[in-house]
C-alpha cells in the first residue's frame, strides 16, 4: 500500500521557453537549461562602448576562437547559481571544520620550523597567484560570449578569491592572527628571486587581451602545473615530512581542482572539436605560453621538491592536452 494524495492536474500550454524548445525539443527543461541558454543579449545593441568603440557591448570578436554556437560550452557540472553555491557551501563546511580542528588543537605547534618556514615561503605567497586567477576569470565573464561559459568563468573567479582567502588564513594560523607571516610571505612574493618568474607571469596575464587565450593560460596551463606542484606533490612532501595535518588545510583546493578540471577539460575539448582553425589557434597559444609558465614554476618546484617535480607536473599537463585532442 502507498498513500495517494489526489491533486488537480492542469494541462500546461507549453513545456518550456521557446528558445529552450528550439535547442532541446518540446519537453520539460532542466533549471540549468532555462537559467543558462540564450540569456545573454545578442542583437541590436544601442551604443558603442566608450572603452572599446570598435566592438559591440557583447561581441564574439573579442577572441580569436570562433564558435558556431557559443552555448556548445555546456558545463558538465551543470552549475547555475543555485547549484554552484550549494556545492561550494558543502565544501566550505568541511573546510571550516578542518581549519577549526587544526587551530583548536594547535596542530601548527607540532610542525618543525623547517616545515613552517616552507609553508610561509611557498604556500602562502600563492594567494597572490590565486588573486590573479580571480581577475583573469572575471575578465572572461566581462568580455566573453554566451552565458554557458561566462557564468562558469565567474564561478571559477569567485572560487579563486575564496582560495586566496583560505591561503591567507594559513598565514594567520602561523602568525597568531597578527598578519606578520602574511607580510613576510608578501615580501617573498615581491622580492625573492624564486618567486619573480611567477610574479612576472601573473603580471603578463593581467595585460593579456584575448579572453579565451587567458582562460587557456590561467585555467589550463597555470592551474594544471601549479595545482600539481603545490597541492598534490607538495602535500605528499608534507606527509613524508611529518606534516600530514597540513593536508587538512589543502583539501578544499584539491577537491576544487578536481571539480573545476572537469569543466575546463570539457571546454577545451569542445573548442578543439569545433574546427581546425580553433585547434591551430589553441596550439599556437599553448606553444607560446607553456614554456613561460614552466619557466616561472621551475625554480619554485625545484626548491620545494627537487628536480623531478616539474617533469611530473608536465606529464599531467600532457595528459590533459591529449585528452582535449591537442597536438595530435
Amino acid at each position, binding site marked *: 500500500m502507498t498513500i495517494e494524495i489526489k491533486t488537480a492536474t492542469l494541462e500546461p*500550454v507549453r513545456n518550456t521557453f*521557446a528558445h529552450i524548445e528550439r535547442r532541446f525539443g518540446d519537453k520539460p527543461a532542466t533549471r540549468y537549461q532555462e537559467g543558462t541558454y540564450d*540569456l545573454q*543579449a545578442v542583437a541590436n545593441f544601442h551604443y558603442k562602448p566608450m572603452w572599446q568603440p570598435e566592438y559591440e*557591448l557583447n561581441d564574439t570578436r573579442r577572441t580569436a576562437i570562433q564558435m558556431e554556437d557559443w552555448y556548445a560550452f555546456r558545463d558538465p557540472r551543470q552549475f547555475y547559481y*543555485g547549484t554552484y553555491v550549494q556545492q561550494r557551501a558543502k565544501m566550505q563546511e568541511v573546510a571550516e571544520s578542518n581549519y577549526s580542528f587544526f587551530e583548536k588543537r594547535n596542530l601548527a605547534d607540532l610542525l618543525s620550523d623547517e616545515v613552517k618556514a616552507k609553508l610561509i615561503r611557498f604556500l602562502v605567497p600563492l594567494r597572490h597567484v590565486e588573486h590573479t586567477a580571480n581577475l583573469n576569470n572575471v575578465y572572461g565573464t566581462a568580455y566573453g560570449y554566451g552565458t554557458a561559459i561566462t557564468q562558469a568563468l565567474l564561478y571559477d573567479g569567485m572560487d579563486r578569491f575564496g582560495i*586566496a582567502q583560505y591561503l591567507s588564513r594559513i598565514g594567520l594560523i602561523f602568525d597568531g592572527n597578527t598578519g606578520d607571516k602574511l607580510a613576510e610571505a608578501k615580501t617573498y612574493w615581491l622580492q625573492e628571486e624564486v618567486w619573480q618568474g611567477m610574479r612576472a607571469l601573473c603580471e603578463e596575464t593581467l595585460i593579456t587581451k584575448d579572453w579565451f587565450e587567458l582562460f587557456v593560460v590561467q585555467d589550463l596551463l597555470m592551474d594544471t602545473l601549479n595545482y600539481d606542484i603545490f597541492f598534490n606533490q607538495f602535500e605528499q612532501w608534507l606527509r613524508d615530512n611529518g606534516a600530514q595535518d597540513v593536508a587538512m588545510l589543502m583539501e578544499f583546493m584539491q577537491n576544487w581542482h578536481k571539480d573545476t578540471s572537469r569543466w575546463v577539460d570539457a571546454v577545451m575539448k569542445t573548442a578543439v572539436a569545433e574546427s581546425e582553425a580553433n585547434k591551430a589557434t589553441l596550439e599556437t597559444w599553448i606553444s607560446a605560453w607553456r614554456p613561460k609558465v614552466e619557466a616561472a614554476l621551475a625554480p619554485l618546484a625545484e626548491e620545494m621538491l627537487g628536480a623531478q617535480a616539474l617533469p611530473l607536473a608536465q606529464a599531467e599537463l600532457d595528459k590533459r592536452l591529449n585528452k582535449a585532442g591537442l597536438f595530435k
Partner: protein
Amino acid sequence: MATKLNIKDKYRLLTRDLDWDFDYQDRKEAFPQEDFEGIKITDWSKWEDPFRLTMDAYWKYQAEKEKKLYAIFDAFSQNNGHVNVTDARYVNAIKLFLTGVSPLEYQAHQGFAAVGRQFSGVGARVACQMQSLDELRHVQTQVHAMSHYNKFFDGFHEFPHMHDRVWYLSVPKSFFDDARSAGPFEFMIAIGFSFEYVLTNLLFVPFMSGAAYNGDMATVTFGFSAQSDEARHMTLGLEVIKFLLEQHEDNLPIVQKWINKWLWRGYRVLALVAMMMDYMLPNKVMSWKEAWEVYFEDAAGSLFKDLARYGIVMPDYVETIAKEKEHLSHQAWWIFYNFTHASAFHTWIPSAKELDWLSEKYPSTFDQYYRPRFELAAEMEKAGERFYCSGLPQLCQVCQIPMGFTEMDNPTLISYRDSVYKDDRYHFCSDGCKTIFDDEPEKYVHSWLPVQQIFQGNCGGADVETVLKDYYRINMGADNMEYAGSPDDLRWKAWKGVA
C-alpha cells in the same frame, strides 16, 4: 595564543593585501579604463569596504537562501500556485518583468563583472564581483520563478529574443546598454548609485509588492530572498559616491552631471512601473504618485540633504517629475492600450471600481483628462470597436518611449523637443532627454530605434504584422491584443469554473 581579529582587520588581511605594485608590466595597462572619464582617484586604500563578506561566508549564506527559495518554487509548481493569484490580468505585470527587467539583471551581472575586473582597488573590485554574482542569481531565480507561469500563460515564451527587439523593451534595454557602454565610474553612478540605491524602491520593490498583494507566491518569495542581496548593493552604491566625492574635488561636477542624467534616464524607465502599479495590479499596493512621494521625495530627499556636504545638489528636472506624477501612469497605459496589438502582454480598460480608485488617487487630473478617454474607449469596445492605433509611433531618441507624454502645463499638448546634430534633426520627449542628447550626441545618434528600424526594413518585414509575427515572434492573437477574450482569459475562466 592567537589574538582575536575584528572583522575589519580580518577582512583587510584576507582581501586587501592580495594586490601588489607591478614591477614587470605597466599597471595602467592591466587597469586601463580608470582615466578617460576624468575622475581622479588619488588613493584606493581609502575605500571603505561596504560589506566585509568573505567568500566562504558568502557561499554559506547564499546556499541557505537558495535552498529555501527553490523549495518554495517546487511547492508552487506542484500545487498549481498560478491559479491562486488574484486574477489572470495580474500575470501581465510579471510578463513585463520577465521580458523587461530580468534581462537587466543579466546586464547588471555583466556590468559589475566588468567593473569588478577594471577597478585597480581590490576592495572595490571584490564588492563589484560579488554583486555581479548576485545579479546572475537574480536573473536565474527570476527565470526559474516564472518558468511555471510560462507553462500556463502566453507572453513569456520568447523573453530574451523579445528583449533584444521589441519596441517598448528597447526602453529598458537601451537604458542598461547606455550604462554598460559608459566608463566604469559612470556605470557605478548610473547603476550602483542611481538605480540600485535611489530608485530601487520604485523599480524592483513595486513588482515584488505587487506579487505579495496579488497572491503570487513564487515572485514574492524571490523578492524576499533577494532582499539581503539588495541591501548589500545599496551600501555599495552609497560607498561609491562618497568615495568618489572624497577622493578629489574635481570629481564633483562630473558626478553631479551623472546623477542628473541617470535620475532622468531611470525615471523614464519607471514609466513602465508606474502604469504597472496603477493599471495592471488587480489588488493595488499604492499609486505611482504615492510611491514617488514616499520613495523619492521623502527618502531620496533626505539622502540628497546628506550629500549636500559634498556639494551635491538635487538632480535637474525633479520639479518636472513632481508635476508628471499626476499624469505619467495614465499616459503610459494609454500608449500601451493603443499599441496592444504590437505588445506581448494584454491591456484592458480599468473596471468601474478601478476607475474610481484612480479618481480618488489622482483627484486633480484623472477625472479631468483621463477618465473621459477611458470611458469612450470602453464604449467603443462594447460596441465591438476595440480601438488599436494602426500607425507606428515616433520615438524619443534617448529614452525611446513613444512621443505620447504631454506638456505639464497643458496636458492636451504632446511634448516635443529637438536638436540638430551634423545636419540631422533628432527628436525628444522632454527637456531631460534633450539635455542628455546634447551632452553626448555622438553616443545617442547610435540608438537602435525600433520604429526607425522597421521603416528601414531591418526587422525582416514589409508590413507590421510580419514584423510582429516573425521578427518579434509574438504569437498573434495569444500574446498580444485585448485581455478580454484572450486565451489567457479563457483558460483562467476554465480553471476557475466561471463562464
